[in-house]
């Protein structure tokens, strides 16, 4: 959890209107349309460079840093020669843009020396993991864009203030 409270624990504990999940940074989505830190993994979906209808599901486990990359039909990625493929590297790079290097390294529990690339600091081996869960989370993510808007008030959103501008 990120502590964004101005005056420490008491303020954090007694406020109702807080932004607990810090907003993510905008990034280009064409290559890696989906990245998330969830279920104990950095996971996401990487568009294939050669086939517009194909995507790869890539994931790196927090702690062990074991990784996997396969198509959404569970066919292993051809680029995994005992080390992370280009899809995994793209996933890490985009996660760093989206969440910031600190949040990603904290989540994965990895020490990144000053000036080093996060992707180079991961140990871990190839460990097959089911792609279906991640892929269905991606589809669910996309499905939000199909939920119709509403002009009825949602008072509950007062608990979720937009924040952001600095300067």
């Amino acid at each position: 959890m990120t502590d964004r409270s101005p005056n420490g624990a008491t303020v954090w504990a007694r406020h109702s209107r807080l932004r607990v999940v810090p907003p993510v940074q905008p990034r280009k989505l064409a290559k890696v349309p989906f990245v998330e830190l969830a279920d104990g993994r950095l996971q996401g979906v990487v568009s294939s460079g050669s086939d517009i209808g194909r995507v790869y599901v890539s994931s790196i486990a927090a702690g062990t840093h074991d990784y996997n990359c396969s198509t959404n039909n569970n066919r292993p990625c051809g680029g995994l020669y005992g080390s992370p493929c280009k899809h995994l590297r793209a996933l890490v790079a985009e996660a760093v843009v989206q969440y910031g290097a600190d949040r990603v390294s904290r989540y994965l529990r990895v020490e990144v020396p000053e000036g080093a690339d996060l992707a180079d600091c991961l140990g871990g081996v190839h460990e097959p993991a089911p792609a279906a869960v991640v892929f269905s989370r991606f589809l669910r993510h996309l499905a939000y864009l199909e939920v119709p808007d509403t002009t009825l008030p949602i008072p509950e959103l007062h608990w979720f203030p937009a924040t952001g501008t600095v300067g």
Partner: protein
Amino acid sequence: MLAVQLAALLGGDSGNAGEGAEEALALLDGFDDALVHGLARLADERADAVTALAAAFAATPLGDRLAEAADAVVSGSITQEHLTALAGGRVALSGAVHDCLLERLDTALGRERAKWPPAPDGPGMAGAAAQPAGHVLGGVRSWLRELAITGWRGVDHDLVSAADQVIEALLAAPDLRRLAVLLDGFAAELRASCPIGSAEHLPVRRWADLWTRALLLSQDGVLTGEPRPAATVSGRLLVLGVDVHEHGTAVQFQVHAVLEPADGGGSRLVRTSVTVAKVDTIVGTALWKLPQRHKVLLAALADRRSVEITDMPLLDSGDLVWDDDRAFVSKPADPLATARLCLPGALAPAVPPLDRVSVRIAEPVLVEGYKVTKDGSFDLDGTVFAVDAERLPDCGPLTPKLVAASSACVGLVRWDGGRWTLQPLAVQVRVKREAVVVATGDWALGPTDPKAAKAEARAADAVTVLRERAGRLLRR
């Protein structure tokens, strides 16, 4: 808002919520702390806090049910019914705090507020409509029960993920949108905070608020019984500003305005909102692309114009149910002039009984003639009003710097964490020796600042990319 009004609001002692409110908040804090560790592990002190919450209602019709629920929970029997009763107690207490705060604010501002009209029929009516949703709501309640038993400290990925299916089902039911949006935001916070066991600070009051709210909305008939049939209104709508609410998968643009009814009746304060589903990677100025079909509303914000509306539904809560087909853009209208000329004397709307929560307090005011203090607060003849510069949405051009340089401000008075603050919506400020108005909604039709426009172009079009992916992958 005059210096004397501000002084009356702050009561010389900033943070004073009012008679009895401190005691009520202390009871809430005790109960909220029990939720941190889970109702299955109530140590003596936390068991006492649960009992104390119930005891506060001893002299009320809720007294017996709450006492029974507290006894049962303390002894380890935690049923849905008991939790609902306790949540009801928390709702009632925080509702009382809300009433106290709002009355204090209305009195200080000299603002007249409409009375909530009594319900035309009994609760029996809502029951029938609730049937189809019953199954989903049951799922929500059982997830919330698991949360309460486990406590925030015990929440893990599995428990959070258990909400996914329920949220998906809620999103598919338009009647249950409010609950879907609430639960989705709540679950995302729990997910992002995992593992919570070791986290240093927890948003204790906030999560208890969200849990209580969700439990309230998941009772059969609460959401499906709303909204109550509305009147329709026509007239001129003068925009004061737009308040933006956002979490990973939803954004609400809530416009505050003064309605001058065409039938010659007195002017009234209204809100009108558009809520759009989104994903976390759609942020900043790109947010304005989502409500695109409401062109009249967006144009009114971006071009600062008044709007003529015809036969638009107005709920008892003061919410206009926006319909672009019943509106057209009219003459230029500056939000500061609107606030100066039309805000005094406008009738404030009643608050629906279930929406009596202090986070919903957002009263538009005009503040001018202040000196900006070092920490960015407004000093009005010696009374200092804290400015919430963190609540400036990044989809608009209003920055803390502009607010600090401003000479007049339209904002929302809010209360949180024991104190009153001002959330700016529009300011008058000198930029390059020219007096200009900068407002949160200025970029509703796209950023007008070249730097922001460039940033938006650089981030490419998130919405378009995701729609393309959805079109290709979603219906396989």
